[in-house]
């Protein structure tokens, strides 16, 4: 089970890192694929308004999903930790330098 939780943590972290980078840097996509620089939305050129919208509501949506998924993951981790024997020698003090 712990292997599954570990992989899930890594997967969640990578997915949300990539999503945040894509929403924050979506203008790069329009530079990489100039063919996408066509059309308008609400009167604005698409390559202008989409990065602004993704940089606001897109990031907020990713953060909301991240919060729901990561908080649920924390519960799963806490459930797993509860099944373990009580801690004996890994107190904070033992690891202080």
């Amino acid at each position, binding site marked *: 089970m712990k292997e599954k939780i570990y992989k899930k943590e890594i997967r969640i972290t990578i997915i949300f890192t990539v999503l945040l980078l894509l929403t924050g*840097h979506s*203008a790069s996509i329009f530079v990489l694929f100039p063919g996408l620089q066509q059309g308008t939305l609400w009167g604005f050129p698409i390559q202008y308004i989409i990065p602004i919208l993704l940089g*606001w509501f897109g990031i907020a949506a990713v953060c909301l999903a991240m919060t729901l998924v990561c908080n649920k993951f924390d519960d799963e981790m806490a459930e797993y930790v509860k099944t*373990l024997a009580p801690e004996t020698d890994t107190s904070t003090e033992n690891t202080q330098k």
Partner: protein
Amino acid sequence: MPAEYALNNVWIGLGMVIILFAIFYAVGYFSSRKTASDEDFYAAGFSIGPVTNGLGMAATWASLATFLGVIALILRLQVPFVYLWIQWAISIPLLTLLYGTSLRRMKAFTPASFIRQRYGKPSTIVIVCWMILIMIMYALGQMVGLGQAFELLFGVPYNIAIIVAGLATVGFITIGGMYGATYNAAFQMVVMTIAMIVPMGAIMKAMGSSGWWFPPLAYGDMVPDMIKNIPTFFDMKYDFRWYFALIPAFTLGPVALPHLAMKVFTSSSVKSARWAVVWFALFLGLLFSGTYVVGFAGNYFTATTGRIIEKADQTILILNVFYNPTLVAAFVMGGAIAAGLSTIGGNLMAIAGLVGSDLLGIIAPNMESAKKMKWGYAALGLGGLAAVLMAFNPPRFLVTSILWAFGLLATTATPAILLGVWWKEANKLALIISSMVCGIIFIVISPHVLPSICVGSGLVAALGMSGGMVTIPLSFAMFIILSIAFNRMPALKAYAPTLADKKVIDRIHGWGPDYDESRYNGIKWPLIISAVCVAVFIWGLQPW
């Protein structure tokens, strides 16, 4: 500045600033009564709820530049600078995801608290010194901006403005500690958002836009006129490398900013910290989109009226003086001041934490909590005083290099934090070498210190984008490769991660007593990352 753009009634401006400062001092005073321990002073007792924290995060991140410098750069660079600015909004979400909540579990006061537990004292001194340098540069830039705002509001000489603004600012931050800084930042975010957005409605109406009712997104009907007057306004202008370089230089730098991380640490819980980030994204998006419309309106103003904005930093005030009543223009300047204050508050609290908690934790580990807190107050006051004194005659290099400093931070501190949290092989000596070597290279190859030795040219070099694209991947690659090598050399065994170091990693990820040596400990993926970093490093070295 032409007289027609000056605030025509100084007393209105003075009244506005007095009211705002009275509120800040009141918040600081009442907050100080809750401060009884170093946990209260540095982390507001780890008790701040998500909405207040989200507002505080947004305010701390939205500096005076949001009102002055960003708009000036949109006026000059137009849309590419909008794209550059958009990506700042992912810094705190990334920080929270990649290490913020992990460090919140260990109740850290600053990221350096983690560095000390993970890497030991010598590494901490290296990282803390870099961070203090960067925080002072950052605070200095804000202080100079505040002086200019006061100068503009009251028509007083800059030196007098900087004394009044500086002392008044340091005063309420020193009084309130992190409780005061956080509650004040939340209030300041509300003030600055209203000041940015609402007056723009009136300005857009006067400019003839039907979208005046929601300035941040409803100015599409002005686009045809803009294209007619400035055909290149919406052009991307630069090649892909320019946009890619934003990631190492500007996205990865703020990830390690201690005053942003401290906003995550003040949360009442790990889950609350994540909710705060959702609010942060919504609040900051609203303010930033307001900034973009002011940049757009500034260009539109110059193109359609034929008037010249000589001091581009003052665009928002000029638009308000031109189109709105004096009271509104004064309130907008009040919003700009609030933006500067919230960032300085975060900067000074970070300096206090770095000195009072992290450095003293090394120099005098047995010092009582109350005494450490007193040193924290002293560091905060001295940091503010240093920024005020330097602001009298600001070195051009320091004032213009806040953005450059993010590249330096990404080079020196970000690898230490990210690899320290996610990789057990991260080695103490490798950290010191990669941080020192790459930090110095970043300084050398930027145009500010040795102009004859420079990677890139013009804006990309001055902002640290071209330097960052070389030294940040180099720092990650060097740290990883040296760690793998050093950990396998018996002569360097003293620097290899101990069992206690590795247990810190499992614990902050929430594994409790369950320690597993193989977790966060592979070398395949770190080597792949190193290879990618080397490729980016070579790409960054190509002439541009």
